[in-house]
């Protein structure tokens, strides 16, 4: 059983990584076949929560992730409505994780996809992510936790899936108030039904295997267990193989798609993502999946992602291909102080 679940997560990682590469081939932006942070940012833009014209589009992949997880959780009798574990803290951690990701220009998934596309800035990003995870582990070992959640009325768990269905309707029949990029990354996307199917498939895969792009590193260092890391390794290898086959690999630091080369802030942005994700219990993808399984704390975190994405662009915190902004650097420092304070203050005193 242990062996089969191990093979399952590696296989799922391979498939998911290959999908990340294929989605670029079919029309998503460069090295952005899947990017959970970027996609929330695009949806926030489509809803007018920020007004940066080049990153506004309702990404059906996200809708698919949540609905795929919902279907899978129901099918395998794992849907459990629950919540109440420090929702306010989770909201702000979610917002800061998003800001850190948008200073680097990618979530933990896109860091791997960028590396698999030859973008060597992914190395500093992954190094930052690992350091952030290690700092988070120190807090875990000191007794940090966000408190217990408890079972809640079932309907609470349906809110996020239903909201995603509503988003899907807005994507299919966009009313006048929905923004849609005419150029830039927001205008670069696969057909709606391909994105939705990819999201649904990915959602089911990740729900079943519990794949997590931060948890893999965390378990490696925390309990010397390689199970979840198998998903990360599989994802990277799958994306790299497909990118090599499709000719999407171009090694170097400069001139990479939707990227900048400021190593310090790529690194620090991802330290914030790694630390915040360990405190939250999972990376942005994992939070997205959990929000479809009835976990309303993860749902609040997702709302934090939207808020963080809106802040990032309204307050000029998000980096551009020219590099990080001054405000973005301040925001990352503030985020690190916030996350460290949470890690320090929310320890069980024993």
């Amino acid at each position, binding site marked *: 059983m242990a062996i089969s679940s191990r093979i399952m997560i590696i296989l799922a990682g391979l498939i998911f990584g290959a999908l990340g590469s294929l989605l670029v081939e079919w029309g998503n932006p460069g090295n952005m076949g899947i990017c959970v942070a970027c996609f929330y940012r695009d949806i926030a833009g489509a809803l007018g929560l920020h007004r940066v014209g080049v990153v506004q589009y309702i990404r059906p992949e996200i809708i698919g992730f949540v609905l795929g997880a919902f279907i899978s959780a129901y099918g395998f009798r794992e849907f459990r409505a629950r919540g109440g574990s420090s929702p306010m803290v989770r909201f702000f951690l979610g917002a800061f994780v998003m800001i850190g990701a948008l200073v680097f220009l990618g979530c933990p998934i896109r860091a791997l996809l960028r590396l698999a596309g030859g973008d060597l800035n992914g190395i500093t990003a992954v190094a930052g992510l690992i350091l952030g995870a290690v700092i988070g582990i120190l807090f*875990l070992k000191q007794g940090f936790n966000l408190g217990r959640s*408890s079972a809640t009325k079932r309907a609470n768990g349906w809110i996020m899936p239903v909201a995603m269905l509503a988003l899907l309707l807005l994507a299919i029949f966009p009313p006048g108030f929905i923004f849609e990029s005419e150029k830039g990354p927001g205008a670069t996307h696969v057909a709606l039904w391909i994105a939705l199917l990819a999201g649904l498939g990915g959602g089911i895969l990740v729900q079943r295997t519990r794949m997590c792009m931060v*948890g893999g590193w965390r378990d490696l260092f*925390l309990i010397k*267990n390689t199970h979840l890391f198998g998903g990360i390794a599989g994802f990277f290898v799958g994306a790299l193989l497909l990118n090599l086959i499709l000719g999407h690999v171009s090694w170097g630091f400069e001139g990479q798609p939707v990227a900048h080369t400021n190593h310090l802030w790529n690194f620090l942005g991802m330290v914030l993502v790694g630390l915040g994700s360990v405190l939250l*219990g999972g990376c942005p993808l994992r939070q997205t999946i959990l929000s479809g399984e009835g976990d309303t704390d993860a749902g609040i975190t997702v709302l934090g992602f939207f808020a963080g994405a809106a802040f990032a662009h309204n307050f000029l915190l998000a980096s551009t291909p020219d590099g990080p902004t001054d405000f973005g650097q301040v925001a990352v420092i503030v985020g690190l102080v916030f996350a460290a304070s949470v890690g320090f203050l929310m320890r069980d005193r024993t």
Partner: protein
Amino acid sequence: MIEVDARGFSCPIPVVKTTQALDGHPGKPVIVLVDSEVARENVSRLARSRGYSVKVEQVLDGYRLQLAPAGK
């Protein structure tokens, strides 16, 4: 009997609490209460990797895992 009540905690807290219990009481059996499949899987995987046998019992609000050191 050492008992860890990890109900309500999300990943990876049940694993952290179980690790601390195993480290604190080497060679002793430990009972862990969890309320999700993910926590059940993670705690079972941890215990097996450390040479414990795992007996899972479904209870009203989740699972009761009996971790017993090998050879006992």
